[in-house]
């Protein structure tokens, strides 16, 4: 599991890869939140293209970042979630809060 964080004019893009579970979520959260605190971006893009697995611990991660972005007055975009991850997201209703896009 790893996350590559890129900073592009007022946007933070977090390229996630590997498996998101309770074991991995903590370090992901720390890395992403560090970048959010440093940059206060208008937009956070969580890119799931390279994520092979996610359970409800990943929902906690997405929800938590959604709330953080609301606090700093920005928005959250979930990009390219694979089919089974979309299924978990749909169950949580996060797809109605954050925008999900495919590029």
């Amino acid at each position, binding site marked *: 599991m790893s996350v590559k964080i890129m900073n592009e004019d007022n946007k933070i893009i977090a390229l996630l890869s590997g*498996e998101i*579970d*309770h*074991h991995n*979520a903590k370090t992901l*959260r720390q890395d992403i939140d560090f970048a959010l605190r440093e940059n206060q971006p208008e937009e956070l893009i969580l890119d799931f293209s390279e994520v092979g*697995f*996610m*359970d*409800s*611990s990943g*929902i*906690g*991660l997405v*929800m*938590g970042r959604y709330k953080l972005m609301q606090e700093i007055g920005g928005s959250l975009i979930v990009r390219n979630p694979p*089919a*089974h991850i979309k*299924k*978990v997201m749909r*169950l*949580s209703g996060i797809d109605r809060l954050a925008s999900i896009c495919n590029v």
Partner: protein
Amino acid sequence: MKIVNEMKISFKSKSENEGFARTAVCAFAAFLDPGIEEIADLRTAVSEAVTNCIVHAYRGTEGIIEITARILNDNEIYIRIKDKGCGIPDVKRAMEPLYTTAPCEERAGLGFAVMESFMDKLTVKSTVGKGTVVTMRKKLGAINE
């Protein structure tokens, strides 16, 4: 219901075992030749149950998690995940979507909801101070029938 095949694993409630546990169960389930979506469902459900043992049942301590998986004669997988942790005082309430006793750790309260919707059957038996047994069943390989 005839048991065609069976396996048992037990392991410590360390979070690094979450990945091991779901992979082991899915490797066993491969005997049923499941489809990609079915295996993703199973992997996620097992991950939820095992994570609950680590996060909730053995909170602040370390214990043993035991998984029994069976292949039943009608292309069905049976999985039992057992802990000897703190137990659940109100199972019905615990199973409600979004209910969590650990909100400040970013738990979504959706573990049971995932197990319920991704598997065909889910039962939870728990005794406070003794532990919890989660059993799940799912028909697999339906596409290939």
